[in-house]
């Protein structure tokens, strides 16, 4: 096979795979602009005859989707802020501070990674019920306060900060909090973005826990609401595609904007791990 044929073949192959991969996303967008019923024919049309925002209007006006968008944004934003506060301080401490039991505790935390989250869900539900925070934002936020993976990520990054830098600041009489705020935080910025991005994306996309803990429709997040809607409106394909677009676009845009950090975080969490 000549190099030229091979080049054409490889590029053709990658284009075909890319088309297949992208198709469901493009199709979702296209159908979401079709008028109700337009896509429920065979063969399905590729593009809307008359592009309309009807499905979106319907979802917001009568489906109450605005409320779910708000819930999702609020919960994911709070989850991100919590994760930033708790994981970053802990990750830094596990990397750079000496304290009794440090290595043992970190080892136990890493061990937790083999336990699937669902194991504790029933007792956690009962626990939150006795605290009276079932069906509240607080209940939905509980699993996001801190995460082993987040701590691990920050720790990996913080290990590379030279000790001399911290020592010099200590000699100059800076308090630990001041060192953390003025020296460590700026150095950690890339990993802060990574942790924030990871937390926002995973909490936005999370399904099982919000499904369990948010019992009232008023508090549903977008994925939970979309799942409920899609069970009721099995026939309204155009409307469901619009719902899928609303649920997906924010995270997809966020990912596209901050891709570099996401991929960096993924690799430091796995390959180099």
């Amino acid at each position: 096979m000549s190099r030229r044929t091979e080049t054409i073949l490889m590029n053709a192959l990658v284009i075909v795979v890319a088309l297949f991969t992208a198709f469901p996303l493009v199709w979702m967008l296209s159908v979401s602009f079709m008028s109700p019923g337009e896509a429920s024919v065979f063969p399905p049309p590729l593009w809307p005859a008359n592009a309309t925002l009807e499905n979106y209007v319907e979802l917001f006006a009568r489906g109450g989707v605005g409320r779910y968008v708000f819930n999702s944004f609020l919960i994911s934003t709070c989850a991100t802020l919590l994760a930033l506060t708790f994981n970053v301080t802990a990750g830094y401490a596990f990397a750079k501070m000496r304290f009794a039991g440090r290595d043992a505790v970190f080892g136990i935390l890493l061990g937790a990674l083999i336990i699937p989250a669902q194991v504790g869900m029933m007792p956690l539900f009962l626990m939150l019920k006795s605290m009276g925070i079932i069906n509240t934002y607080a209940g939905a936020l509980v699993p996001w306060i801190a995460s082993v993976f987040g701590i691990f990520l920050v720790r990996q990054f913080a290990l590379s900060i030279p000790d001399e830098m911290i020592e010099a600041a200590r000699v100059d009489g800076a308090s630990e909090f001041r060192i953390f705020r003025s020296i460590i935080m700026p150095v950690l910025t890339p990993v802060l973005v990574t942790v924030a991005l990871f937390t926002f994306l995973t909490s936005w996309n999370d399904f099982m826990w919000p499904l369990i803990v948010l019992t009232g429709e008023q508090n549903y997040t977008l994925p939970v609401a979309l799942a409920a809607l899609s069970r009721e409106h099995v026939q309204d394909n155009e409307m469901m595609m619009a719902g899928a677009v609303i649920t997906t676009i924010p995270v997809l845009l966020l990912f596209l904007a901050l891709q570099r950090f996401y991929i960096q975080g993924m690799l430091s969490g796995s390959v180099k791990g």
Partner: protein
Amino acid sequence: MKRSATGWLFAGPAVLAIFVFFFIPATAALILSLTDFDIYALADIRNLRFVGLRNYAELLQLPLFWLALGNTLYFVFVGVPLSLAASLGAAMLINSKLVRFKPLYRTIFFAPFVMTLVAAAVVWRYLLHTRYGMANYGLEQIGLQPIDWLGDPAWAMPSIILFAIWKTFGYNMIIFLAGLQSIPQDLYEAARIDGASRWQQFRHVTLPGLTPVLLLTGVLTMAQYFQLFAEPYVMTQGGPAQRTVTVLYFMYEQGFKWWNLGSASAVAFVLFVFMFIFTMLQFAIARPPRGRA
């Protein structure tokens, strides 16, 4: 001493949160699984009784539990190898010197992974629609019979596997890409000089170079696939003929539909034990025999 206190001040809140909201519930689940916690106990805790291993014994006699376990294992053992193969294939394609616009393809391949799972499942349910779906239209175009993707008991799980591969292959692809780039080019050079074919190069240079990465992605993907839940919840509701009831789907219904929280905790533990055993097996298999490492 003062240093220790500051350290705990920084690490303590996160450790406490993980302890209270993860370790305690996970431990409590073991105890809960030994009780008959149900809707009566939920109303009044005094109705709670300790039943020993009865929940486990009952599960073993429940055909639906075995079916759920079988469905889950089917999904894992067919899905994980296919998913890893798709990831590796995509990574090798993008890694090829001949392919242009790599960042674009990388982003396209990764996009499904970032997409909200529930939204993607809704989209795919429509794509696989028996009458109006694009998938069947495609089959018709190439002269094949339509398939009742999500309605035929034999096709439902393969459909979900297909969807899951599409959704997740981009993640491992990125990790494989990094792995491929860490294999020294001189090894390929040397293999070529020795007259190794493409396949031999793949078999003797690429695969050994990727072994640690393969083990890691294998373990992580398997753990993730064992937790199949949202796809059947949205796409099939466990049907048809309960062929897509997975262990977690079963657990969810036991726990939060019928409020048998004791029994549901037992299910969660069985799942955990299975995941643990298969993870250990993978490590055991991947460890090179003594003397050859």
